[in-house]
């Protein structure tokens, strides 16, 4: 059994791992990927020491630091975290289980999904959540972007340069994106904006061939002919695997106190999965350190009870 299991390998998880390794804790990091949301950031301009560093380069530096400690990294997705008398056990999607005396949840956030028929089935077959990754693949094809915020309009701007036609689908009556981005998108001339419009179904057998949407005001449904649907409607905390153990906030975040404690003894949380007010790399990193030190102190007191 490990002393500490850290779930997630973004800035919070990796910083926690560094602090725990320096305390010579027997630890394991369980994560689907290394880097989390930082990977998607083009240029990080507010991490001290770097006026501008590409997200992927910052992640590489974190990873290099982790590797210097020989920390055990298990790749996988945690489906459920449960309490056992000695600590915690994580059930992974692939059937493995990992147990530890203490646990730091640093699982971050993932893109929010639409929740319409066809979305899951056509994932990576035209349905995409990472415009930075996949936009160039849609050259010459017609696409739709869902979401009129900065990330949605940003995706539309990227796509309008390589696609004949781009539809921007927004459920509200106006776009939330900054004026400067909206102007840039309108200047492209090939983006059709569908406001008051909600997704109904993504259509296709092997690949996306159409997108059924409904106008909220007129209730009229139409199918737009696209080969790609980019979903840009924000992020959601990766917290469902712990919902039985802690009571999540209405935003599905894990509430923590200033010591990164969740209220369950031995269970800590850090970074964007928590209710910390600012979702920032530096804050996640700092909270990860706090959480790991908290886990260390917790074990110390268990082994050498005060008084």
């Amino acid at each position, binding site marked *: 059994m490990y002393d500490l299991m850290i779930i997630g390998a973004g800035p919070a998880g990796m910083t926690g791992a560094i602090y725990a390794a320096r305390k010579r804790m027997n630890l394991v990091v369980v994560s689907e*990927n*290394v*880097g989390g949301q930082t*990977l*998607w950031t083009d240029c990080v301009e507010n991490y001290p020491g770097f006026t501008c560093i590409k*997200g*992927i380069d910052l*992640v*590489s530096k974190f990873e290099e630091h982790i590797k210097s400690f020989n920390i055990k990294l298990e*790749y*996988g997705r945690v489906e459920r975290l449960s309490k056992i008398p000695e600590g915690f056990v994580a059930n992974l999607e*692939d059937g493995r289980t990992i147990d530890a005396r203490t646990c730091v949840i640093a699982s971050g956030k993932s893109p929010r999904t639409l929740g319409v028929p066809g979305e899951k089935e056509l994932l*990576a*077959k*035209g349905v*995409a959540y*990472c415009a*930075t*990754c*996949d*936009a*160039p*693949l*849609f*050259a*010459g094809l017609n696409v739709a972007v869902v979401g009129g915020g900065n990330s949605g309009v940003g995706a539309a701007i990227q796509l309008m340069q390589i696609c004949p036609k781009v539809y921007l689908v927004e459920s509200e009556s106006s776009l939330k994106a900054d004026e400067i981005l909206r102007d840039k998108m309108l200047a492209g001339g090939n983006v059709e904006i569908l406001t008051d419009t909600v997704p109904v179904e993504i259509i296709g057998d*092997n*690949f996306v061939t159409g997108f059924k949407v409904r106008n909220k005001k007129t209730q009229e449904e139409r199918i737009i002919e696209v*080969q*790609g649907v980019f979903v840009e409607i924000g992020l959601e905390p990766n917290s469902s695997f712990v919902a039985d153990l802690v009571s999540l906030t209405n935003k599905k975040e894990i509430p923590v106190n200033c010591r990164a404690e969740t209220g369950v003894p031995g269970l800590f949380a850090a970074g964007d999965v928590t209710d910390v007010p600012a979702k920032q790399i530096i804050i996640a990193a700092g909270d990860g350190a706090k959480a790991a030190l908290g886990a260390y102190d917790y074990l110390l007191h268990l082994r050498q009870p005060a008084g």
Partner: protein
Amino acid sequence: MSEKKVIIYSTPTCPYCHQVKSYLTEKGVPFEDKNVADDIEARNEMMQKSSGISVPVIDIDGTIVVGFNRPKIDELLSL
């Protein structure tokens, strides 16, 4: 042990593509990199092999891995 032929279909902007390439480089595994953002033919080839439009796609001696699935890549290349 005969060397396995590895092809990576990638775009220059995709972080997971960079990660998979640096991982294989670190492990000393040679690979061919096809930039599907510029090369439509390679894109179509990738779509046919993976039945998808998403990068990275890794072709290891004909076995297709979609995404930077490290356990699967380790298994296929005995890393």
